[in-house]
């Protein structure tokens, strides 16, 4: 054991010129550095996407507001959605996966380090291409030629006849490029997990984070490609006069919707499954118990992976499909609630009988459990097609998916940040500031997104730059906007905490949480080659076995 935890002298101790350091980062193929690059890139876009959201919420704080023009507002919701999904959520989850997977499986790096670097830079470039759209055309005034077709860019609004200029092309090409990066990362994650596990780590002994990322990677391979194909078709329409979505030539607008949502729905599982992974690592450690029902958790996730590809047209209930199609997608969508609910029960089962420690990572995960429960239930409401005929495309849907993405995914992400920050930086974050961040963000999140359900129930559609007074929507929009400022405050505390702690935090040591998976056996931060000698494992909690040789896990699993 000693050999894995020796922190050998590294180049960190010798001060280097800034040019060499930057060059090192730009040309790195080390999974840990690439992971951090992904995470930092995503954090920058998180702030930008947040600014876009704030602009929208200020415009909607009262009816008939004139904070921004309709054209700017429409660009804001398009860019906000596109940014948050493709340049915040996906990169940040790939970043954590990149960083943690090799460490957790006892490997020295990902299967294809150069492909890893290529994928990151492709994703990064895609984001820059999308954002360059703000500068084109009229420049920043009027938000340039940023796309304004909504993040799902329905045809034929995206045809050259209705989207003049190149704003839609920035959307299409930026995402096409970053999509190739995503496929590269998915191939890498899959090959790494299948081929590079350390001796003894059978598929049944991998940490749940690794299992869930495996399912996620497989989904990415099958889900991103339909979007890539659809975007190729759209580009052929726009540049070469093809007629895929040209309704005058017999093309089908609904076909775009099918292709988009065959991507779009599995995509949200791609986003939420790594969030489940974080919860599945954090909750056991802070309850001091192993995860309850490991095999069932794996089975449920695989089930979600498969069924997730059969629900897509629940985004299209209002499109005029016949009653059999509507019924089919209703039942598949309701069915996927079963494995998802099972996971919630297993997390409760993990806490049950444990000794829960309320440190910041655990606070975020507990909030996640409450919030994901609500998000799932509003999803069940939306799955009943006739109910969706009222609620679809309204603020109820906006509230629902923000509940999943912010209340579910972002909360576990914050938890993951606090949990693994000591490992990545070697320093402990400030616990008081962490709790302050939690409470500010929790209040802001609930102010904004709890009350957002109500205008939806009262008939307020989404993607409107203003609304009529006297429909009963005014007060709720006001409350939603107020919540934004709490979230901004919480996020600022978060960023400040990370920055301060990076420079001034106290040394974390290898294993500040007394955890059980392999990454906690390395130094903080780990040396470049991760492990001096590749470990051999016998159970799901290798460090538990070392710390409790009289009562190792492999006797009972």
């Amino acid at each position, binding site marked *: 054991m000693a050999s894995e935890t020796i922190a050998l002298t590294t180049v960190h101790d010798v001060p280097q010129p800034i040019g060499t350091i930057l060059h090192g980062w730009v040309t790195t193929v080390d999974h840990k550095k690439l992971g951090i690059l992904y995470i930092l890139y995503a954090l920058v876009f998180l702030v930008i996407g947040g600014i876009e959201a704030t602009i929208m919420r200020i415009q909607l704080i009262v009816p008939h507001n004139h904070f921004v023009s309709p054209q700017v507002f429409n660009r804001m919701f398009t860019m906000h959605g596109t940014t948050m999904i493709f340049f915040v959520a996906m990169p940040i989850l790939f970043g954590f996966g990149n960083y943690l997977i090799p460490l957790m499986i006892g490997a020295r790096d990902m299967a294809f380090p150069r492909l890893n670097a290529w994928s990151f830079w492709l994703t990064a470039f895609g984001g820059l291409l999308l954002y360059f759209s703000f500068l084109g055309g009229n420049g920043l005034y009027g938000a340039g030629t940023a796309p304004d077709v909504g993040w799902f860019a329905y045809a034929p609004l995206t045809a050259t006849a209705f989207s003049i200029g190149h704003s839609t092309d920035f959307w299409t090409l930026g995402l096409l490029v970053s999509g190739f990066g995503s*496929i590269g990362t998915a191939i890498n994650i899959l090959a790494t997990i299948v081929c*590079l596990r350390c001796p003894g780590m059978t598929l049944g002994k991998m940490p749940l984070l690794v299992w869930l990322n495996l399912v996620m990677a497989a989904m990415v391979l099958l889900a991103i490609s*339909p979007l890539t*194909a659809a975007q190729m078709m759209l580009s052929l329409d726009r540049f070469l006069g*093809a007629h895929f979505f040209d309704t005058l030539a017999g093309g*089908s607008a609904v*076909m775009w919707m099918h292709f988009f949502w*065959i991507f779009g729905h599995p995509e949200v599982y791609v986003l939420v499954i790594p969030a489940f992974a974080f919860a599945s690592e954090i909750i056991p450690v802070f309850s001091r118990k192993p995860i309850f029902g490991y095999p069932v958790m794996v089975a449920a996730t695989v089930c979600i992976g498969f069924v997730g590809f059969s629900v897509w047209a629940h985004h299209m209930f209002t499109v005029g499909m016949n009653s059999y199609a509507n019924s089919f997608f209703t039942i598949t969508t309701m069915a996927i609630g079963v494995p998802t609910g099972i996971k919630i029960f297993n997390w409760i089962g993990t806490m049950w009988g444990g000794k829960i420690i309320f440190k910041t990572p655990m606070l975020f995960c507990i909030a996640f459990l409450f919030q994901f429960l609500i998000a799932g239930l509003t999803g069940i409401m939306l799955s009943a097609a006739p109910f969706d005929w009222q609620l679809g495309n309204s603020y109820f849907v906006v509230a629902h998916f923000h509940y999943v993405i912010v209340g579910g995914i972002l909360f576990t992400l914050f938890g993951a940040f606090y949990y693994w920050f000591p490992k990545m930086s070697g320093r402990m974050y400030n616990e008081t500031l962490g709790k302050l961040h939690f409470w500010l963000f929790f209040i802001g999140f609930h102010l904004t997104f709890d009350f957002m359900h109500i205008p939806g129930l009262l008939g307020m559609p989404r993607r409107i730059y203003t609304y009529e007074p006297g429909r009963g929507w005014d007060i709720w929009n006001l409350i939603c906007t107020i919540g934004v400022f709490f979230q901004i405050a919480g996020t600022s505390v978060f960023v400040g905490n990370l920055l301060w702690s990076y420079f001034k935090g106290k040394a974390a040591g290898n294993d500040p949480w007394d955890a059980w998976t392999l990454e906690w056996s390395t130094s903080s931060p780990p040396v470049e080659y991760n492990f001096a000698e590749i470990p*051999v494992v016998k159970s799901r909690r290798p460090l538990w076995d070392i710390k409790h040789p009289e009562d190792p896990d492999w006797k009972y699993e």
Partner: protein
Amino acid sequence: MSTASSVSMEQPWVLPSRGRVGMFSLIAAELAIFTIFVVAYLFYIGKSVTGPLPKDVLELPIFASICLLSSSLTIHVAVSALRNGRVQAFSMWWFGTMVLGLIFLGETAREWYHLIFEKGLTISTNLFGTTYYSLVGLHAFHVTVGLICISIAMILTLFGKAKQEHSERAEVFSLYWHFVDGVWIVVFTVVYIIGR
């Protein structure tokens, strides 16, 4: 937990090769892209509002298909040869694969020339034109990428760089080539048989 060197395992710890797993993953993703184009093709059969119809302009590319599918055979023989250390044989069969692939591309180019300049069918003519050129073109693009890789390997082989230990890499590439050929079977069926 202990270190690998200090514990003797009952069975050797063997996991699949990362090249093979990586290539299968790539093939899965590519299959998904092709599936979408095939679905679009099938959906739009008979829906063109104007313009030449498939049965008016399409001729079965039998010769090109035989060439392409044979190239799967030749690449298989080439890889076997390299696995057994017969570099000369490998070189010959690899070259044969390249030639067959080039013939296929040439035939496609000829067919497109005929369709565009003699039959007036372009990607913007009608739905048939759109779906035909995009599906066949996507496939041809994948053949082209494959041929570029084959050419690079050919050049290296001519410089004497090919060795027996490269057989695994050649085999991983041949998976891609088999995939491209398999897709052609589907494209052929959808475009020239079902769609005509």
